[in-house]
């Protein structure tokens, strides 16, 4: 599955296809030699200390019903959180992403996984996701197009795009 990584903030953000250093491991799979691993919340809760003792970066994957509060206390130990979209219609991860970023101050990689479609990329990016597993033949181009479709945003979110109400205010202050 291609992995898209965004860099830059707000309307200047750009997207590239990158190699994925992370290895997803099942709840009872042996750990690979040294690679960073993504585990389920179940395994994280069970093996937390053992995982951290290996010294490698660790990420947790949350199913869409698992809330940000379930890992909020552990965020200092996590380099990545992956949030699942079991179908594009399940929008819970948008709220979880914003809570992780805005309420709990998570600074690591926030990855969108599952049914990630080009027509939702901009919403995800605005809610604080910075990497995306996307099954699209030309993922980078699709992402670039999705990011460019709008220049006006009405509400603040996690991203750095300045919402229209604030732009209006900044403009009238400058006049």
């Amino acid at each position, binding site marked *: 599955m291609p992995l898209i990584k965004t860099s830059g903030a707000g309307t200047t953000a750009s997207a590239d296809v990158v190699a994925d250093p992370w290895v997803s491991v099942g709840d009872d799979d042996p750990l690979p030699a040294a690679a960073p691993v993504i585990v389920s919340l179940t395994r994280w809760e069970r093996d937390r200390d053992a995982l951290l003792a290996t010294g490698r970066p660790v990420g947790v994957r949350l199913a869409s019903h698992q809330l940000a509060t379930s890992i909020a206390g552990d965020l200092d130990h996590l380099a990545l959180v992956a949030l699942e979209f079991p179908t594009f219609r399940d929008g819970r991860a948008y*709220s*979880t992403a914003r809570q992780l970023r805005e309420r709990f101050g998570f600074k690591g990689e926030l990855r969108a996984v599952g049914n990630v479609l080009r027509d939702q990329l901009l919403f995800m990016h605005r*809610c604080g996701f910075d990497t995306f597993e996307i099954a699209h033949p030309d993922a980078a181009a699709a992402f670039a197009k999705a990011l460019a479709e*709008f*220049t006006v945003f*009405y509400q*603040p979110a996690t991203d750095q795009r300045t919402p*229209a109400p604030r732009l*209006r205010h900044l403009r009238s202050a400058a006049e």
Partner: protein
Amino acid sequence: MYRYDEFDHAFVRQRVDQFRDQVSRRLSGELSEDEFKPLRLMNGLYLQLHAYMLRVAIPYGTLSSRQMRCLAHIARTYDKDYGHFTTRQNIQYNWPALKDVPDILMDLAAVEMHALQTSGNCIRNVTADQYAGAAADEIEDPRVWCEIIRQWSSLHPEFSFLPRKFKIAVTGAPNDRAAVAVHDIGLRMVRNEAGEVGFQVLVGGGQGRTPVIGSMIRAFLPKRYLLSYLEAILRVYNLLGRRDNIFKARIKILVQQVGAQVFADMVEDEWQHLKDGPVELPDGELERIQAYFAPPSFEPLPTLHAGFVEAKDRDPAFAAWARSNLADHREPGYAIVNLSLKPVGGVPGDATSAQMDTVADLADRFSLGEIRVSHEQNLILPHVRQKDLHSLWQELTAVGFATANIGLISDIIACPGLDYCSLANARSIPIAQQISTRFAELDRMHDIGELKVKISGCINACGHHHVGHIGILGVDKKGEEFYQITLGGDATETAELGRLVGPALPYDKVADAVETLVDTYLEHRQGGERFLDTYRRVGLQPFKEKLYATH
């Protein structure tokens, strides 16, 4: 009225361009109908029984004459020369071709309109009191906040894939004409003891197959916190609302499941992290939007125009119309005029392009260019001088909009029903036509007084039958249309759900049944009681006995 600035124009055009691209991908076959469905639904485009249906938003029910002319132009150019005003202050076109839809959206954009968020599991077009900015009983104009909500909710990145659709209604007056208690969120502008204006917040109201009156979770919310508080409600719902069953996915089910107090606590907890944050309006933005809703320049006029009084004395038909179709205006010498889209035997809410053009012209000549659409599917000229009422009435009569029946038995709300809708079990429109024909006689209608009949063609309750004084619900019994009748529903500040009278009746017995119910009311009526008052005093039993004794 609100006017788009450069940001609003750019936003709506970008949205049209995006949809044009999606439509061309569909027409070329790159997108299947399944893949296209969620995209078109985000733009108000449904696939109905016979064709695509496009639902255009009329935010908080306010239209300029220029916008009304555009709606007429769309009906004439792209549809079968008519449109249907809905119970959510939208207009629907039943016959557009898919290839034309991007052009329709571009025409709408030119007059500062769109079809955004008229469908899909997102925050839908915000509705309001149709008399906003004109009503005598108003505390403040709710449209200022509706516009703020409209902008905040437009392509909200967090709330575009909610468990289910989400409807917000706002009233600025204590007499609730916007049915806020049966919305996912109902906002009532209220004054606290210190004299400040804020919002009373109701959540979890709704109709559909599980009708619920909303629960108040906050008695007074200062205005400046509205957006952060809404964001907190939506976030709790987005995270915890059920997604395993479409019929249990509305916020009302979550509120019932955890209890209103627990829900209020969860919102409060989330709100503590959002209030005073970036979502609150920046300085100057409230004032900027308020300025657009500043009252128009009304002429200083005497409270009562002598000519108006004389005309009523002289002309009983005008007097009857004035009694039912006018509402009190906040300015002396002005009136709010209701145009009835419920002619006897007609289709509730339908208007032809010629009628729409006429309304636009009348608005320019008599109502400072403003028009409103009510959730009861009528049109309103909000600012008419009393001295113009008689000539306006004559012109309305000529175009068929002067039926003197606002709030009366033939002012029926009906969904499109089986004639158009793919969800319906039974027809609604012909039932409405039969009832309005049965009670066509004006004196009788006025004698019966306020009586709200609401008809839905299926359990989804688009015709608001749960809150009709008389509610009629079409059901399917082994392939035949039957109708359940409820009594005592009320959508106002004294909101209540109707109660089922008894077994469903066949199609050809419904108008008779309504007549029996009305006769029973007249028998028991005391003094100036409305149907609803009598029902509340005597209860269901006398109605039930009469109805099932004769049928």
